């Protein structure tokens, strides 16, 4: 049974189409990554799943409930919006208690869960501190804890690690793995491509369309392309030669990554070799990273590189 089923979902803000025929399923127990650049439609999609925005066209079911049943859906899911949305003038403990009350968690049960969440987030020593005075990483941990206080079956996280330092991001993902271990399904969006590697399955979204939805391994093999890394003292000149020959040609630090379809790889390399005669360069084949795959899918797309 899929936890989320989306069929042919479209959403319009007035005349601007934010979601275009989105079909997607999230399997029970998985961490599903929704990966795409800013304004790809990630937030819109998540808000529709939470019932914050209506389903205009298409069919959405969450935990076997129709999206019109949003009040019931809301009591079963946990949601963390993109922006930090807890009460900055309330303390860590007050925020947790407030959300426990909103979900009608009995007082005794609440205290037990708060202890569990403290143990897991290491927030106990800050329990009296106002949320506004927490660091970025701790804020996200608190928001995650608040979203978990009623033991949701599905957790929807909108760019939870955006703007968080790398160490805290890593800790945050460890926490997600732990939550998954307890049997909670997680749908998480991110603009960071390296985080795709941490998901069981990912959906690539751009311009309101789902480009691909599968495990990373399957996406890689379906992609069916090779990536080569070139380096040379004069990168600019090399870039000029490579760009018209490759399917995608990007600068990564002092290397140039080019993407060539598997089938024509050998042939293309020969052509490249003949064209770049006289220029000093080195190259090697590298494993395609999520970033390469994205860029070739979404080119031209504007990316925040982590």
């Amino acid at each position, binding site marked *: 049974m899929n936890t989320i089923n989306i069929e042919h979902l479209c959403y319009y803000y007035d005349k601007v189409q934010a979601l275009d025929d989105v079909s997607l399923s999230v399997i029970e127990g998985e961490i599903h990554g929704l990966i795409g650049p800013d304004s790809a439609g990630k937030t819109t999609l998540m*808000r529709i799943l*939470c*019932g*914050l*925005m*209506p389903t205009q066209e298409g069919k959405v079911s969450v935990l076997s409930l129709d999206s019109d049943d*949003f*009040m*019931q859906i*809301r*009591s079963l*899911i946990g*949601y963390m*919006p993109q*922006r*930090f*949305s*807890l*009460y*900055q*003038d*309330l303390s860590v403990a*007050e925020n947790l208690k*407030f*959300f426990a*009350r*909103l*979900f*009608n968690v009995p007082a005794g049960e609440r205290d037990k869960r708060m202890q569990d969440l403290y143990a897991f987030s290491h927030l106990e020593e800050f329990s009296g501190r106002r949320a506004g005075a927490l660091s970025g990483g701790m804020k996200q941990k608190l928001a995650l804890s*608040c979203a978990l206080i009623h033991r949701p079956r599905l957790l929807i996280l909108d760019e939870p690690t955006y703007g968080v330092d790398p160490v805290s991001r890593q800790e945050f993902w460890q926490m997600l793995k732990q939550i998954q271990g307890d049997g909670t399904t997680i749908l998480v969006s991110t603009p960071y491509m390296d985080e795709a590697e941490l998901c069981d399955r990912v959906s690539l979204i751009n311009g309101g369309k789902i480009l691909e939805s599968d495990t990373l391994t399957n996406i890689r093999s379906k992609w069916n392309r090779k990536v080569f890394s070139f380096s040379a003292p004069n990168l600019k000149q090399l870039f000029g030669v490579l760009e018209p020959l490759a399917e995608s040609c990007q600068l990564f630090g002092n290397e140039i990554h080019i993407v060539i379809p598997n089938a024509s790889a050998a042939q293309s390399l020969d052509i490249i070799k003949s064209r770049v005669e006289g220029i000093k360069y080195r190259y090697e084949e590298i494993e395609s990273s999520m970033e390469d795959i994205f860029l070739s899918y979404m080119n031209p797309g504007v990316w925040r590189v982590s």
Partner: protein
Amino acid sequence: MNRRIPAIMLKEVNHILRDSRTLMIVILMPIMQLVIFGYAMNMEIRGIRIGVYDYRDSALSRELVHKFAATESFQISYPQKPIGEMNRYFYQRAFHAFLIIPADFDHTMVRQNQAEVQLIIDASDPNAATMIQNYSFAVVNMFNDAERLLPIRVKTNILYNPDLKSAYFFVPGLIAMILVMISALLTSIAISKEKELGTMEQILVSPIKAHEIIIGKVLPYILLALIDAMLVLLIGKYLFKVPFVGSFPVFLAFTMLYVIVALSLGLLISTIARSQQAAMMMAITMTMLPTMMLSGFMFPIASMPKALQLITRFVPARYYLQIIRGIMLKGNGFAQLMQPGLALILMAAVLLILAIKRFSLRLK
């Protein structure tokens, strides 16, 4: 058991206690408003320039003018221009008032045992005009006593502002205005603030219902607004010596009703406004002007055009003013105040239901 309403209430109380701005609005604003307005309206006037057209010019009429001149309040002079030019004098602010003694002054006094003089007052400053009118009455009474004559009847004809109320009536009016303004202001930002901060998105993704949010937000502010009511009442009573004849519990009950109306109005605004700033502007304009103009605070409703009279029916202060003037000055009880009380109950119910209906459990 449903914990959501108490949860919202508790959270609001924490917000209030931790936000110095709210506390400033609640405590300092009413004190300042009442004191400033109250003193400004109570200012005494000296050196009133009064122009006399004495068409009789007899010993008796000169005696009356002399009585005016003998007080510290009036400065007498005799304008040259014909009486038709009076308006021009008013425009130039050369005179505050004119005393017109008709040619048959002595004659009617003897014949009919009473005489009429006319007093024309520039009431572009209504407070000053009230004073001038009252001082004039006092002078005429003195004249009557001194001459042992039968009373002269002063027929006042007030220009520019047809309506004048005595100072006692101002304090209840100010109480009505301050309470409605502050209450509406407080709740107007209660929801727009959460929308702006993004916290609304977070609490909406819970099984909370619209009425739970609205009621949870109104309740703590009732207490706050009642504290304000006590504050302004105390200042009115001890600083401005406004009598309080009626019963305090009756006052408290109706005041609570009135603040619920105002708080609900604020919440309704909050569900409409897109930003805190817009909400505050709306709350102030929707409460201050109608309360001043259309409640009977400054101008009596009976003398308004029919269309405006109809509009006053939608101004809560109209009913509340009737109630507190009744309680404070006449000692009215529940029985006499049923009708305005019911009007307020109806308003509170309609506004609350509208706010709940307007409140969307989805994002815009």
